[in-house]
């Protein structure tokens, strides 16, 4: 079946997916600007390949691939991002809007998670991907994705409660 969508469909899809995609891309780079560049490149690449927008796992895999390509292309940049990533896990706040201090504490606890758990959590919570889609995006089994998700929640609960 041909995947033909209209111009307005594209805008609707993007407005729904963009926040989650940028948040996911943000796991690989330090700045929102870099994350948006990654999403732009990935989204255009995804549409050019004529993939179905229903295939969200592939869309996230494209974002991940572009992000990793970006890191590989420039070794100096990769080193900088690695340092920034380490630094971010300890001090940098995530890209969220907070209503109260409790949410800020939760975001801080989220930043303490290992990257492989955090990216699963980001896809599951804010993009509502299934474990099968997450597994496809990360090239892992859905059982592994589910396992990482549970570990993430357990760690988060532990850290969040500790902060409370």
């Amino acid at each position: 079946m041909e995947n033909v969508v209209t111009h307005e469909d594209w805008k609707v899809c993007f407005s729904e997916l963009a926040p989650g995609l940028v948040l996911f891309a943000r796991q690989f780079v330090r700045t929102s600007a870099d994350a948006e560049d990654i999403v732009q490149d990935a989204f255009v690449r995804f549409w050019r390949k004529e993939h179905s927008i229903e295939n969200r796992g592939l869309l996230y895999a494209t974002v991940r691939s572009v992000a990793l390509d970006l890191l590989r292309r420039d070794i100096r940049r990769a080193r900088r991002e690695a340092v920034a990533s380490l630094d971010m896990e300890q001090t940098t706040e995530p890209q969220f809007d907070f209503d109260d201090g409790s949410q800020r504490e939760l975001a801080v606890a989220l930043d303490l998670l290992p990257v492989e758990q955090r990216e699963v959590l980001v896809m599951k919570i804010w993009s509502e991907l299934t474990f099968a889609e997450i597994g496809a995006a990360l090239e892992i089994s859905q059982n592994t994705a589910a396992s990482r998700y549970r570990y993430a929640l357990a760690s988060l609960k532990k850290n969040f409660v500790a902060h409370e």
Partner: protein
Amino acid sequence: MNDFSELEAELKKLRPRPVASELAARIEQGLSEAAGRGIATAGVLPKRRSFRPNWIALGLGLAAAATFLLLARVNVDKPSSKSAGLALITPAPVAPVARVDDSFVPSALTQVVYDTKDEGLHFTQGADQPVRRLRSRKRETMHWNNPQTGASLSVSYPAEEVTLLPVSGQ
């Protein structure tokens, strides 16, 4: 039973910061550029797959091919006789071939000698007496014209000639 349902609800309350408004515009531009290059865009934008010849490249290619064929033919018809003189030689133009058709015919050959070197006496194999070897460098210019159209063509190239002069014993 999910022990984390409350935590999941808390997490969902966290709202990712809004994406920069210009990101959508940048993506739209990227998709438009992709469509302009004839790249598939999942039907978001109309595809332009029509064949567009590059007329400039095509014209240059044809001109180069025509020039090559012309020169190749001219070289085949090149007269073999060359003057052995060492001074500036400007022979009388070769009479155009009487045949009149739509093609180039040789009309003149100009030889300008700009360097002559005496390389001394040499004994060639099987010869009884030595010869003096003179090496001259010159520039030859060949001219063609088309009697039918009046078009002319000139080709100039460097040439080198070695002349062996018998040395008399006296």
